[in-house]
């Protein structure tokens, strides 16, 4: 069940990320252009933020999945009586 969920998620997520990976490559800096978080990206630390958000989002989604299953169990129990 868990493996099934994971493989389905990865199978869906990968093509989407590949689509934008071409866009990542375009990120080139120029001095006279508006300031963007280039330094943060070069030092690699933006990935820390991405990971933090992914962890928080995963936690919240996992909580919602568990809540969903608990309600399903409750529904089955009520049906049986």
């Amino acid at each position, binding site marked *: 069940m868990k493996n099934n969920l994971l493989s389905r998620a990865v199978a869906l997520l990968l093509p989407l990320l590949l689509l934008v990976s071409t866009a990542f490559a*375009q990120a080139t800096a120029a001095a006279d252009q*508006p300031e963007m978080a280039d330094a943060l990206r070069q030092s690699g630390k933006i990935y820390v933020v991405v990971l933090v958000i992914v962890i928080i989002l995963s936690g919240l989604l996992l909580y*919602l999945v568990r809540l969903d299953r608990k309600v399903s169990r409750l529904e089955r129990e009520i049906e049986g009586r």
Partner: protein
Amino acid sequence: MKWWKYLAIVLLLYTAIAGLLGHVPRLAILNETERNLYFHVPMWFGMTIILGASVVNSVRYLRNPSPRLDILAHESAKTGILLGVLGLMTGSLWARYTWGTWWTTDVKLNGAAVTMLIYLAYLVLRGAVADEQQRARLSAIYNIFAFSAAIPLLFIMPRIASASLHPGMGGNPGFSKYDLDSAMRLVFYPAVIGWTLLGVWITEVACRLAFVKEKIYTKLDEKQLA
């Protein structure tokens, strides 16, 4: 678990990753905050869709009253309000760092705030009526008023206003510039679908819990009568 819940998980994780790492055009003042497009704007998309579902269920209730339709309308309205409040909070924060103020008397901002107040009154109204059928009927009628007030406040008045800071209307070149960016669209549309599905998911779980509660209470009532 239904398929669209897996889709919601994937789209939200994709939004978080691609939304922060993907390409965005270089714009003055906005800078990296334009990535808020993937998080702030879908709140309003989701809110509108879910409040629309709420009013549809209210109309269905008035045509054919049942506790089930009342629960659907009520729980949808609650999720819609949650998304709207999050939209106001994120919008205010975004305004602080791009317009330099938490709030201005902008037609779009005030329209959104008034909409939230109208919907908070929906919850107040429900809380004030003890009788279940009366509460359901009154709040269904009020919900129609609330939705009919929300649409002009959010989508018509800002568009006919002569000036506004908020993108999506005349006088602001910012939005159209990055709205046309195809790399941002690739994240923005999945983000809208993902966040809306999350709102629908939360509503679904809340409704199912309310249905179970309803069932237990009717059973207890039957026992007491017997």
